[in-house]
């Protein structure tokens, strides 16, 4: 229970670690989900205590675990990823119900890194059982932007229409960065349409962050990894985002480098065509647009 108290502090409550009540997450999770998850966790603990021991053994957030790293900052992502999907329930338990005793005494910085890593990697597993926890974190009071962003990324990785709308609700709010971070992982047509609309009326740093998300969501390499069965959806997503990015590029100024990176990640032929049209329609931009188009044509 000590860890729940401490962890949720960073996730839900502003102020020093250890101040958040456990009820914060419970109130944001359906009771049925809580019951269901607790039962699954109990079953898993009986059948596979090593899964839980594995999570309890991570050290990347402790000074002795990271002091000798090249950059001595707390990071747990590699360890958690290495545990694989067997770590889903142990992480859910640690975040929502009960953390390993060994995590009781953690500095604020280390705790924040631990929380971010737990939420982030939980999302990377793309496991349906994680969704209630991720939604609860997303919908809770934002205390840590890093935790909110991690939760948003997790929701983006399981980008149902409901999750996409949840993330879209954060656009233009104090959770803008988190929402955009989540939409960057949302590789669906609905997600792309939300992002494209968001790009259309953005300026400055907001535009840069949304453009980066468009690059991530439209990543041609990621879509290749998703396989041939999703190729058509990938084409639609990348085309949607590429056209939005080119339109933004045409009216952008200092934001252009960020937009160009995103276009290169989308690496979609529609982007090349759109840039050529832009060059033809707006002579003042012709040279720059064709230069970008030329670089884009070499990406795959």
């Amino acid at each position: 229970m000590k860890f729940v108290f401490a962890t949720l502090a960073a996730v839900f409550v502003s102020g020093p670690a250890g101040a958040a009540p456990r009820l914060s997450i419970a109130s944001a999770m359906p009771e049925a989900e809580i019951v269901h998850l607790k039962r699954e966790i109990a079953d898993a603990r009986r059948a596979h205590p090593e899964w839980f021991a594995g999570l309890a053994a991570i050290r990347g957030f402790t000074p002795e675990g990271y002091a000798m790293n090249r950059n001595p900052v707390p990071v747990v992502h590699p360890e958690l990823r290495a545990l694989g999907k067997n770590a889903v329930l142990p992480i859910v338990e640690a975040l929502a119900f009960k953390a390993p005793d060994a995590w009781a005494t953690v500095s604020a910085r280390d705790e924040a890194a631990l929380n971010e890593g737990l939420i982030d990697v939980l999302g990377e597993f793309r496991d349906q059982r994680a969704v209630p926890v991720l939604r609860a974190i997303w919908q809770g009071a934002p205390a840590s932007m890093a935790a909110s962003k991690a939760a948003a990324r997790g929701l983006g990785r399981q980008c149902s229409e409901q999750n996409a709308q949840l993330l879209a609700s954060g656009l233009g709010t104090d959770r803008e960065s988190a929402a955009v971070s989540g939409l960057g992982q949302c590789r669906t047509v609905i997600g792309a349409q939300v992002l494209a609309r968001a790009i259309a009326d953005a300026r400055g740093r907001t535009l840069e962050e949304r453009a980066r998300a468009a690059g991530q969501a439209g990543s041609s390499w990621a879509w290749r990894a998703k396989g041939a069965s999703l190729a058509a959806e990938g084409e639609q997503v990348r085309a949607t985002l590429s056209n939005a990015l080119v339109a933004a590029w045409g009216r952008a100024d200092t934001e252009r480098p960020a937009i160009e990176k995103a276009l290169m990640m989308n690496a979609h032929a529609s982007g090349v065509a759109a840039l050529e049209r832009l060059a033809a329609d707006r002579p003042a931009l012709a040279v720059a647009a064709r230069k970008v188009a030329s670089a884009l044509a070499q990406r795959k």
Partner: protein
Amino acid sequence: MTRCGNARSNDGIHALSHDCRNALVDFLYCAVASLSILSQTPPRMRFLTSGNGMVGVLVVIAGCGSEVNQGADIASGGSGANGEGGSSSSSWPVAGGADASGAGGGLPAGPVGLAVDTNRDGTIDASDAAGKDTWTETRGAVFLANLDDDDNDGIRDADDDVVSAKDDQDDLARIFVGALGGSSSQAAGVLTIGEQAAENVRIFRRTGDDWTLLLGSFGECDKWTPCDVVTTATLSGDELASGVELGIEARSFRMSSDAEAWDGQVRLTLDVAHKGESMGSDAVALRVAPWLLFGNLSPHDQIWSHRFSEEFVDGIDIAAAAAGVSYRTYGAYNDIWTQDFFQTGWTAMPGPGGTVQGMRVANARPWGRGNDDEDLPIAWLTENYLGPERAVIETYNEPNTGDSYDSHGNHDLLPPYGSFPHGRIILGSGVLDETVAFYAAQGAQGEPFRVDTSWLIVGHVDEVFSYVPAQTPLGWKLLVHSPSAMITFLEGLKSAGHGSEKFFVGKGRYNNSDQYVNAAVTVSDILDDEDLMAWAQEAQEQIQPMRDAVVAEVGLEASDVIEIPVFFEQMGDWGNVAWNPGDANLLAFGDTIVMAKPFGPNVDGADLFEADLIGRLAVAPLGSTGNGLQVFFTDDWDAYHLGMGEVHCGSNTEASAPYSKKPLWEVSP
């Protein structure tokens, strides 16, 4: 030879007739003795010899000096009293030995001369006279920051008041006060340097084998404890009569180009008066030699690393032995990232007879991996590195400042190109302002070239770039980490039917817990990893502008760039780090490189990733001979890769004299 009469002038030698000036030059050349002459002949000295083999001191050799007399300004630039005031036609014989103050008690008239190695040829002679009082990039004497410890007392030579070992003497640049043959005991010469220079240099006077601190900083002092400063010193008439040998050292390199900071220069003036009346003055200008960073193409003869990882050490040991390079390991220090906590460089000035007088200079990172003073890199360097010809410095304002960006893996050197014959320092993001200012103030390796490494969790430029020798017009090629090359490599493996072959067999994914999770993963699974692919592609788009910037800056051709396959993974908002061993992060010495063992798929007993890398690097025209590099691999997985670094991060290199193919003073310092 031309005899110069009682010349009266208002500007010293410039008022002399052409013939007379030629005569002076003849005189000076005649008077320059070679090392052998100096060591074997006790001539009538006009400039004291160093007695330590210093070439180029001026000696009056029979039959030479007597040809020139009054009005001749030996040091060519000083102004004699006869010229200054024009009050007397009396002479101060340069040669002939008449003491003007003696019998007649008249005003000695003669040259007041200071001489230094203005043209940086290791010889002080007539050719040093012109422009000696104005330091420029192409002309002007150079002196060392004498920060090694020749007497092995644990204190840097410039931090104490003594000139100890002979090697310490050799680290002093010489300034000669020309003998005023006719000076009287009532004459006095006043040497002066500026206050700011005095805070940064020490000038010693030689008497026999003894050196006495005369000007500059007095007392044991360091960066945080100021010295007493002396800006003027008086030479007696007797000393003026016989001449004086001075030695100068700096206590610091030039630290900043800011207008209020010391510009590295010393202007030493000598004003001679007799009975209160000026006899003339002279001046010389010198500048402290810059510190230069070693780079991959430096003639490395020493490798360093921690010894905690047997497999890592073994891998380097084999390569070092094959190349005939010394390899030194350390154990009793809590930092395994040898590249990061200190940086190796050098400094040098012209030595006698065209030799190089210099030293290696290690630069400490501002922070250590503990809270105690002994955890600071400077403490380790002082204990383990400082010694004869091994200097140590700190460039930070305060210890325990800075962050990962201030690790020296983030401060590298683009090898020589264009107008940077000693290379140009390249920095990633961050870096303390004072460190950047220090690099820029050296001048020799340019204003640092900056690239964005903020997207990396460690944030070092050596996570992306390296440099290897090549027999090409440029002389080197750029290695750049490339996710794009990695995906091409992987897709090639899959196309060749190796999709089910595994990377990282036998390796674990982390080493700092009670568990060791199998890291093995198939080629197909890697390519199907949506997150990894997106991270890799984003990393590629972060690297591309870095690469474009270096290509444009250096003027690289496409063939000058070699891509090294690597993927990066993201750690949430913390940033990116190499997912597989990053092989551009390599150790280079001569034509040998040591890379991280990639643990690629093993097919028919061969590591296909190793074969790919060898195919990229052990080929023409790489290497100084153009026959390819000698490629070695060492297992850094547990020791360094899992700690977010690779072979370069875990090692360091340095070179010994002459340090560089091009002496510093033959290019713009």
